């Protein structure tokens, strides 16, 4: 079957989609967007976290056909979608992961970045306070880091939120 939807602002169409395949498979194997990682395929690890119509979800748990006509934003779309710079500019959350050294093997990083981006948007992005560590940990409860580098990941998210709050802009 054919599935058309919007990814990172661009309308795309995937052909010859098997009705039982996941959105994750479509993104990675048919649309050349390998940023969302394929690890557990059961919603356990969060490595394939994407925005689906504005809320975060595991792309492995979404049937391809359910994406028809929907809006998907992947980790590739965080930097490219940045309003403050050119297409190569990283998002604030990505910059914070670099600055805090929150990346070890890197496999969980794309999913964590998307989920952390959502937390920052829903807190300081809406004029709220910088989330505390408990709130950060709870927001990231569905993202597993096999290297267990959670301390620096939490540091990175806090840093991203603090920078965002200090910049005072909604961008």
């Amino acid at each position: 079957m054919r599935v058309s939807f919007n990814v990172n602002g661009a309308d795309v169409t995937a052909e010859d989609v098997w009705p039982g395949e996941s959105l994750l498979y479509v993104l990675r194997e048919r649309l050349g967007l390998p940023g969302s990682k394929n690890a557990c395929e059961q919603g356990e690890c969060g490595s394939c976290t994407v925005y689906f119509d504005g809320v975060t979800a595991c792309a492995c748990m979404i049937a391809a056909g359910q994406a028809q006509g929907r809006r998907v934003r992947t980790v590739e779309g965080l930097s490219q979608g940045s309003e403050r710079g050119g297409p190569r500019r990283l998002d604030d959350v990505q910059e914070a992961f670099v600055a805090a050294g929150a990346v070890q093997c890197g496999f969980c990083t794309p999913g964590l970045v998307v989920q952390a981006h959502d937390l920052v948007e829903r807190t300081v992005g809406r004029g709220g306070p910088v989330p505390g560590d408990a709130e950060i940990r709870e927001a990231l409860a569905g993202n597993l880091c096999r290297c267990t580098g959670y301390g620096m990941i939490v540091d990175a998210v806090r840093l991203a939120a603090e920078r965002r709050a200090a910049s005072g802009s909604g961008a």
Partner: protein
Amino acid sequence: MEFLSPSTLEEALQARSAHPGGVPIAGGTDVMVELNFDRHRPEALIDLSRVPELAEYGPDGGYTRLGATVPYTAIVEHLAGRAPALARAARAVASPQIRNRGTVGGNLASASPAGDAHPPLLATGAVVEVASAAGRRRVPVREFYTSLRTTALRQDELVTAVLLPEPKGPQQFAKIGTRNAMVISVAAFSLALDAERRTVGTGLGSVAPTPVRAERAEEFLAAELDWEGATAPTEAVVRRFGELVAAAASPIDDQRGSAAYRRHALAVMARRALAWSVTDYRKGAT
């Protein structure tokens, strides 16, 4: 395999009856695991995510009608007042990403004994609304679970909504897992006091082939509670309530926990839920 995208409930029910081997999908948190691991290859997927009626919630008579595809996140954010125990359970489901997708309708249709929504639905006496092309019917949730992963839902029916009674007293939910997040429960317990009828409701998860109530514990507590003065129950009453709740379970040993641990955990959760509820009741909280 076919992928069917009904856009109305009528179309969805027609698809259901035309494809007895088809599998309805909403949040996909169960169905996609089966597909990804090639454990199951249904003749059709019936996507319910485009049926507006299933995604709505709001007051309906004395109930809150919760459409089958409303995600857990919406329950946490919007229904904590109207369905306190269910909202607490919804908050304990998996992770934010899963709560954004998973649904009570899916919990009911798959009827895993570990489903987090079941204990509060049992404790509060919720009613399941199901429909087929022939019409709708309502099944009290206390009659809905028939055997392991089997329900009163017929082959040609879909779960369309669950009707949540207006709370008439404190409601609690407690869950034991191997860690704090992202776990399938080892045991779960829900307690609901109805101060108007002076009745007690319970729901137990992950401790029997189906979600179950502890009816003897309910009757015992309803008779022992000081509904007028709201004085704290005696130590002996609290302990006996815990014992009766644990006695209603028929747990098994599995990789998540032993039967003995599950019984122990249930008694502890029941005593705690009772203490929290009496405190709330005394404050006049409902």
